[in-house]
């Protein structure tokens, strides 16, 4: 059940909920993504209120499906967190060349402050490099409105559009008044080979068309874009976008503000005019000095935050006050709270106890189990990106002295394995290390870290209805991995230990599936399975 009434005329909703409702009202025909904090609730909510939502194995596949939908003159949304855009950037950088027939919006959620992410990258850089128009909402109402505007832009200029969210806009609740629903697009295939097939002969003119399109979009943004000037006086003017706008309004209520809603391509003439109308002009932004650098590159002189202090972490009202007052002193670090840890009774605890006991060198991956790197386990030696557990370990095995190489183990979660681990497994057999290798899939039967989402290995779709269940052992065998062991590390810790020990001793390739469900998800998993069985029995009658 959604946490709000989607039919209400006025509601208190999070930015993610606002997007889901806007998707429904924009008649989005297909929404697909891969879970990642802070973006995960968008598709879950969209499904709960009746929208067609799916989880893809990873962001690249999701983006490709969404692009196909938009090629077919329909509306699509693809959702992901900022690092997911790296995975799907291959699609993005050429989808701007091909353009779209219908409407496609790429919802990307950045995580300034790294509440739940491995890096603090800024999606605005991707928008510029891929030449993709970008909107940045400040609150739930704007998230709702700007998604609609993003579709209008996408459909008018035939180009995918990025809607850049940040953690605070995704997860903060504010008041939303929805508008009228849009007419649905009618899907149809229109053949246009030179526009859709990016061989060099067609891609070269497409690149030129894209730049010309951006000039048109910039003109539109200057004249009619969702940017506004709030004049309060001429002493101080502040240029800002996204959540920074609200921090600025609170920290400097007397300043004049240019609030930008579309930040790529920038309405540079509007910025120039605003800068000329105030004595002192400041850019306030989170993360990279992206606005400041682009505005300066256009020959407009602006002041901006002192990056050695303020580049990292989220902005807040306090920080905006400090920035505006020119305070460059180090900030008082906040009192450290209690760090998160693997839950009591978590099946990963049993697996890591074994790996630690055997003195393994552990190449890890992204998920709840990354918490094993922290005390008391300290049983993970590296973690970089989705799927890297396998590739990094193969690298270690190639060069380490034999006695160390023999201790290397890859540890990867079930959802992460499906996302990006399969190709690593293929390489493991293709470029087989002399000492062999051992991969452990920590299969807790759910995407746990991001809030218990389904994936192709659970055998259930986003709405928990049944579908084909991916078989990790069969994949491994097909790739050329000779040993596959399935063991429950909680019920049979000795079996788990024997499996890892024997695999490490052999110079062979082994996949161990340590299968035991996430304790937090168990109740839900049983309920979904029961409901599916009952439904199947009913249909059989």
């Amino acid at each position, binding site marked *: 059940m959604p946490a709000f009434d989607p039919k209400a005329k006025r509601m208190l909703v999070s930015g993610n909920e606002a997007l889901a409702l806007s998707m429904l009202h924009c008649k989005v025909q297909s929404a697909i993504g891969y879970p990642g904090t802070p973006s995960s609730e968008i598709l879950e909510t969209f499904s709960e209120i009746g929208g067609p939502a799916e989880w893809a194995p990873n962001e690249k596949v999701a983006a490709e499906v969404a692009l196909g939908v938009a090629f077919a003159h329909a509306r699509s949304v693809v959702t992901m967190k900022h690092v997911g855009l790296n995975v799907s950037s291959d699609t993005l950088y050429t989808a701007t060349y091909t353009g779209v027939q219908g409407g496609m919006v790429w919802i990307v959620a950045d995580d300034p402050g790294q509440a739940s992410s491995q890096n603090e990258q800024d999606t605005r850089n991707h928008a510029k490099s891929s030449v993709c128009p970008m909107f940045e909402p400040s609150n739930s109402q704007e998230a709702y409105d700007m998604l609609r505007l993003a579709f209008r832009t996408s459909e008018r200029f035939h180009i995918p559009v990025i809607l850049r969210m940040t953690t605070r806009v995704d997860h903060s609740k504010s008041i939303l008044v929805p508008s009228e629903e849009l007419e649905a697009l009618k899907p149809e295939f229109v053949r246009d080979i030179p526009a859709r097939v990016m061989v060099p002969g067609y891609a070269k003119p497409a690149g030129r068309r894209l730049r010309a399109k951006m000039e048109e979009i910039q003109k539109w943004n200057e004249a009619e874009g969702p940017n506004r000037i709030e004049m309060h006086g001429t002493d101080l003017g502040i240029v800002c976008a996204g*959540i920074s706008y609200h921090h600025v309004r609170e920290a400097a209520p007397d300043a004049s503000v240019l609030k930008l809603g579309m930040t790529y391509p920038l309405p540079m003439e509007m910025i120039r005019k605003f800068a000329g109308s105030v004595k002192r002009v400041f850019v306030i932004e989170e993360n990279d000095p992206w606005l400041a650098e682009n505005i300066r590159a256009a020959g407009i002189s602006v002041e901006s935050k002192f990056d050695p202090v303020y580049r990292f972490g989220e902005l807040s009202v306090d920080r905006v006050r400090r920035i505006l007052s020119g305070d460059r002193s180090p900030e008082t670090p906040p009192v450290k709270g209690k760090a998160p840890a693997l839950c009591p009774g978590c099946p990963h605890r049993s697996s890591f106890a074994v790996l630690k006991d055997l003195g393994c060198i552990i190449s890890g991956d992204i998920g709840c189990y990354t918490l094993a790197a922290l005390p008391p386990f300290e049983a993970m030696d590296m973690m970089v990106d989705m799927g890297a557990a396998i590739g990094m370990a193969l690298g270690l095995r190639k060069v380490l002295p034999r006695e160390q190489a023999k201790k290397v183990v890859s540890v990867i979660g079930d959802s992460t394995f499906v996302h990006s681990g399969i190709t690593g497994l293929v390489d493991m057999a293709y470029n087989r290390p002399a000492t062999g290798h051992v991969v452990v899939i920590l299969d807790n039967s759910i995407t746990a870290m991001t809030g218990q989402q389904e994936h192709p290995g659970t055998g259930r779709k986003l709405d928990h209805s049944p579908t084909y269940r991916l078989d990790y052992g069969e994949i491994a065998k097909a790739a050329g991995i000779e040993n596959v062991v399935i063991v429950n590390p909680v019920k049979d810790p000795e079996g788990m230990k024997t499996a890892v020990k024997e695999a490490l001793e052999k110079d062979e390739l082994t996949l161990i599936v340590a299968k035991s469900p996430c304790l937090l998800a168990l109740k839900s998993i049983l309920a979904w399975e029961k409901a599916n069985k009952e439904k199947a029995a009913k249909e059989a009658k």
Partner: protein
Amino acid sequence: MKTMNVKFAGLGGTGVIKASDVLAELVFELGYDVKKGEVHGMSQRGGSISSDVRFGDKVESPMIPEGEADYLVVFAEDQVPVNIAFLKKGGVLLTPKDIDVTRLPSEKALNVAMLGKLSTYFDFPEDKWQGALKKLFAEKFHEGNAVAFDVGKGK
């Protein structure tokens, strides 16, 4: 009305976010502008979390600045030092010490009891509190919540 700031804090899985949802829903129903901000993600893993509710005529940032919380409602005593910098001078700190936890129908109902305590500082009608609680909790919790809310109020 100037913006009123209430910060809820505690450990993940103890109903901190739910409590802030109840207050936000209540003041929304009463017609205030309201914003609620928090960080999810690691919250189910037992780490420190907090959630800010801000309401008044017009609310800008969803995050309460340091030293500006009118109320700091902390569900675990050891989380007071982590959050105390947010409480304004003369602001009200509420912790489980302020209620008779032995009378709670279950440990889980602590968040509702803390809301009961908080309610004694506001003039909001009792039925609006109860309405928000009923809206945000499944029916099986309603009876226990009513008891816990009264315990918090000191009834």
